[in-house]
């Protein structure tokens, strides 16, 4: 009892270090049938664009060993619909809402940010320059230059806390991380999914209509953990770590690697209550190890 779980990401006060990964939680309504959303540290909603996006053709998902590929294509009804139809529901809960923002052009990202700025109930923006299923989106996150261009444009339009979500599908993730911060990002989140594919040998076809998709789930955890560790060595802004977190101990590993908070993603598909169980698991770890404040374990991994 009595451990402190509260963390701060930019101006966002989280009552515990657990949010959810964008695209694994919809806009909260479905999971609200399973528990009180106010228990979460924050909610990161599905990628939101300026205009409605239809998404990719079906099939959009396929299971892989200890993971899955998805190629949803950021299907969403657009930012105006988010504000009028989705946000009022989330305002009922005592939980910060982070909006994941996507665009085909730099101006589209900036315009979505403009529309979200000052809207009651929006606590921050996660700039998604790393979705592997929408070409423009991943292209922005692939290099430090294009990352900086998007972040700078969004920064000019809003004082909301900006979190840039980094792609693992890049040469040097630390260079992209630095570029995002220099352009005005208050925090970083990583990693997005790893680009992959799956083939059905019997039909001799790709398993996804989009051919390629993003790999997520426990299969990617070692890669994600390594990237969080590497980025934490070179930046001094808060990091939200994610990639295959299934339970409290997985989350603790990310925090030891340098994450100030974590996001639960694919685990929401397997267990709708996963994020709540991760929060409980972190608290149990702190009690078992004698830490009184969750912030005290951040970056505390040691080399023997």
């Amino acid at each position, binding site marked *: 009892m009595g451990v402190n779980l509260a963390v701060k990401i930019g101006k966002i006060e989280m009552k515990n270090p657990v949010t959810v990964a964008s695209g694994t939680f919809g806009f909260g309504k479905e999971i609200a049938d399973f528990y009180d959303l106010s228990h979460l540290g924050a909610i990161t909603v599905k990628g939101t664009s300026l205009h409605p996006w239809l998404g990719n053709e079906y099939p959009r998902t396929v299971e892989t060993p200890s993971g899955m590929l998805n190629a949803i294509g950021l299907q969403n009804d657009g930012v105006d619909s988010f504000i009028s139809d989705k946000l009022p529901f989330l305002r009922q809960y005592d939980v910060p809402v982070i909006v994941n923002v996507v665009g085909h052009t730099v101006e589209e990202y900036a315009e979505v940010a403009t529309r979200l700025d000052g809207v009651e109930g929006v606590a921050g923006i996660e700039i998604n320059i790393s979705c592997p299923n929408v070409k423009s989106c991943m292209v922005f996150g692939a290099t430090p230059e294009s990352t900086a261009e998007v972040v700078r444009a969004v920064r000019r339009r809003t004082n909301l806390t900006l979190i840039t979500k980094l792609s693992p599908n890049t040469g040097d993730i630390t260079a992209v991380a630095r570029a995002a911060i220099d352009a005005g990002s208050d925090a970083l989140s990583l990693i997005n999914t790893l680009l992959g594919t799956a083939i059905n040998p019997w039909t001799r076809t790709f398993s996804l209509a989009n051919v390629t998709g993003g790999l997520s789930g426990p299969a990617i955890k070692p890669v994600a953990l390594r990237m969080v560790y590497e980025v934490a060595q070179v930046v001094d802004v808060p990091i939200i770590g994610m990639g295959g977190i299934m339970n409290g101990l997985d989350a603790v590993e990310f925090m030891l690697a340098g994450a100030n908070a974590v996001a639960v993603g694919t685990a929401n598909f397997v267990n*709708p209550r996963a994020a709540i169980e991760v929060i409980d698991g972190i608290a149990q770890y702190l009690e078992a190890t004698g830490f009184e404040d969750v912030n005290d374990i951040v970056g505390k991994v040691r080399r023997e």
Partner: protein
Amino acid sequence: MKGVYECEILAQSEIGPNVVRTLLKSSEIARQAQPGQFVNVKITSTTDPLLRRPFSIHATYPDEGVYSLLYVLRGKGTALLRKARPGDKISVVGPLGKPFDLGDSSEAEHVVVAGGCGAAPLHFLCDALCRKWGCKQVTVLAGAQSKDAVLCEAEFKSYEVNVRVSTDDGSYGYQGYVTDLLDAYLAERYSMSSQSGNSPLIRVYSCGPHEMLKEVARISRKYKVSSCQVSLENVMACGIGVCMGCVQKIKDSGHGDDSAECFHYERVCTEGPVFEAENVVWE
């Protein structure tokens, strides 16, 4: 609040070639479930297979707090489920999805069209239709590849519903597709009615392979039945409406014709699995 339930497996038995019936205990699911809904089952606690598997609900026994599933041994997940023993507990989310609409007219005739393992949810539906409207109002058309693959025939017949069976190879019942039976049945009903002058109110319900459902939809439209509902089986990742993976193209309202130009995606797990066939973009 929806739940994640630990359900004890009471029994498993093979009721046909590669077809298994599983009895599970959960008073909540048995009490809440409606025909056409499904449950999402975590077959092992390991990460491979990682995702849950959706199974339509085959029967419920609310007084006993028991429900059953019917599944075909198809891949890794179902093979592992088959190995579960009575007394084992598995994690189940449900009941999920939108159920069949049983209609609101006591005049209606209900035609249930089952293809292969599509019989699973239709057994539960048949039970509900009999309770609500009386078994005399219900006709079941069941199709399978061959005699030993015909599912639930004895159960359908235990209700006093009219049952007709087809097999692709002719080893039992009518030789041909179950959609031929539907076409013949509707032709007969509408020709009888044109003689008497009273147009029958017919509701069609179907579950089975995609190509069969497409044909059921076409035939139902040909006869202008008052409703044709199909239960779809798209691959799901989450089953609860958050991943947007299991989507189906649905015609935008105001575009009832066959032009599939104007459509949007709906989630089979949440807006479905039961859809009005005329709204589906059939590809």
